[in-house]
């Protein structure tokens, strides 16, 4: 066999190995966004009292992202400007959506922290303790008093 052919076969074999490793672990969760978010809210790990479940349009206005771009979204936020609690659970269509989405959420939370800085220290502290997690085809973002527990519950729900 000639050298280029051997090299081509080696490259093809390495490509297959690469594909295997890229897709091997952490498969996308088969649960729906409603199931995952439901587990967080029904168990009261995330208390939705005083919060409103928002539509895709309201999500779009808040994050400048189209809800239709994702497999599903559940978004809770408060009507009062001073209530900073939020829960956002998104099921991605494609893993590549995770990074830009996380960036948008981070940017928004940073802007919000700046907004509350200096005059609402409790809200600022709550915002500072937010959790943002991307895992198994989902992105979850929560601002609440027990954010760490919400994160744990989210991981278990996937």
């Amino acid at each position, binding site marked *: 066999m*000639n050298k*280029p*052919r051997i*090299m*081509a076969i080696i*490259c*093809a074999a*390495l*490509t297959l190995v*690469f*594909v295997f490793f*890229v*897709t091997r*672990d*952490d*498969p*996308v969760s*088969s649960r729906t966004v409603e199931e995952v978010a439901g587990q967080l809210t029904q168990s009261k790990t995330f208390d939705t009292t005083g919060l409103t479940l928002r*539509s*895709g*349009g309201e999500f*779009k*206005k808040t994050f*400048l992202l*189209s809800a*239709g*771009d994702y497999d599903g979204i559940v978004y809770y936020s408060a009507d009062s400007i001073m209530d900073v609690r939020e829960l956002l659970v998104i099921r991605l269509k*494609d*893993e*590549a*959506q995770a990074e830009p989405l996380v960036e*948008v959420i981070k*940017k928004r939370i940073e802007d919000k922290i700046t907004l509350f800085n200096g005059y609402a220290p409790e809200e600022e502290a709550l915002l500072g303790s937010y959790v943002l997690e991307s895992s*198994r*085809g989902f992105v979850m973002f929560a601002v609440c008093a027990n954010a760490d527990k919400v994160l744990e519950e989210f991981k278990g729900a996937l």
Partner: protein
Amino acid sequence: MVFSSAVFLFAFLPAVLLLYFLPLCFWNRRLEDHRKNLVLCAASLIFYAWGEPVYIILMLLSIGFNFNIGLDIERCADDSKAKKRILMAAVVFDLMLLGFFKYSNFLIGNVNSLLSADIPLLKVSLPVGISFYTFQILSYVVDVYRGQVKAQHNIISFAMYISMFPQLIAGPIVQYSDIEKQLFGRRHTPEKFLDGVFVFIRGLGKKVIFANAIGAAHTEILSGGTEGLSAATAWLAAICYTMQIYFDFGGYSDMAIGLGRMFGFEFMQNFNLPYTATSIKDFWKRWHISLSGWFRDYVYIPLGGSRRGTGRTILNLAIVWSLTGLWHGAAWNFVAWGAFYGILLILEKYPLAGIVPKIPVWVRHITTMIIVIIGWVFFSCESIGDAFDLLGSMFLLKGNAALDSQWMYYFRGCGFSLLLMSLSAFGAFAGVPKPRNKYIGILCSVCVYGAIMTLCVISLVSDTYNPFLYFRF
């Protein structure tokens, strides 16, 4: 990394240009060409790795595989059967890679829906630019097989052709035969460089000033869904998207062509005032020319084109347009979009062939524009259901109002932008006379493009809404 980002404009590009134009091997022209190619290749890989640190490995392996396939095909030049086997192996392998990353979850999703199965989706994300660089790779191996080009023996030059950052992410799809002669000995002149800068800024302006603004308007109009939209507002949304996609993708292509020119390359034109088309066939001769050309050269003509009778031509057109739709995305709305154009082109080619030329040009132009706007509805929506929903609003099929105050509100916001964009899209600015004196012409261009660049920088600093629509393909 995107062209319309501060890190690209103010760090990456200046650094690459500096390294590229430093005459480190000035005493030997050939060596200097090699050095320039090496700089461009390394910069392209860094550019790609910036956004895809994992999938750079896939691209490198793909480059290694196809580089060697090219050499192997050349080695078997006298053995047509062996040559064909190698080509088939390469085409199948390259298409399987593209298919796996782009269509596997689409396939699983459809199987799950049809059979009520619960096959878990794969954890795969679409490597940026894979649709574009796979097509470039295929053009290379097929052209080597056909004997139209010689196999590339320098892996740096080959890697540079595949990964060249100006057109890596969203085209234009550069066929190897078009660029082979430019890999070595391409000319660099101050005029060419300056022209490249101007074309790049023009593209940046189209993207940042026009596409982003009208894209935000489109998002705002449809932010509450299609429920309760008046027909006029629904049409306004569709027109906004029509302009957004042209200025977004056309802007990106201009940037790619401009950057290519700065580095001494001449890429093919990808858009030629597509919204001035007077038929669907004419539209596709003007829109994404590099993709249409690729499908013509590597799918339609090898299938027999229009040489094997009416039935076969219709079948070939149906295949090409289904593939064109699927190439754009793994979703049924893209298939519908491709089929929509396939059917229209077949109608234009056969039953309407004698009628269309007799229709007044202005009627043909308006009809084409309406069809194109409807086509973009399929393209912009996330599902066929959403597309028909919006079309229902546009054509008063949902019991909605024809006109309402909401339309006036949105039109006030984006009407002027739409007017400017329409004038530009219809070529109104193309006929602006240039000063006769060369130096006054350059001075005028510097002032105009300097102003556009300033506006772009201001927009980039203050605006976060900055997606390129064609990145996801």
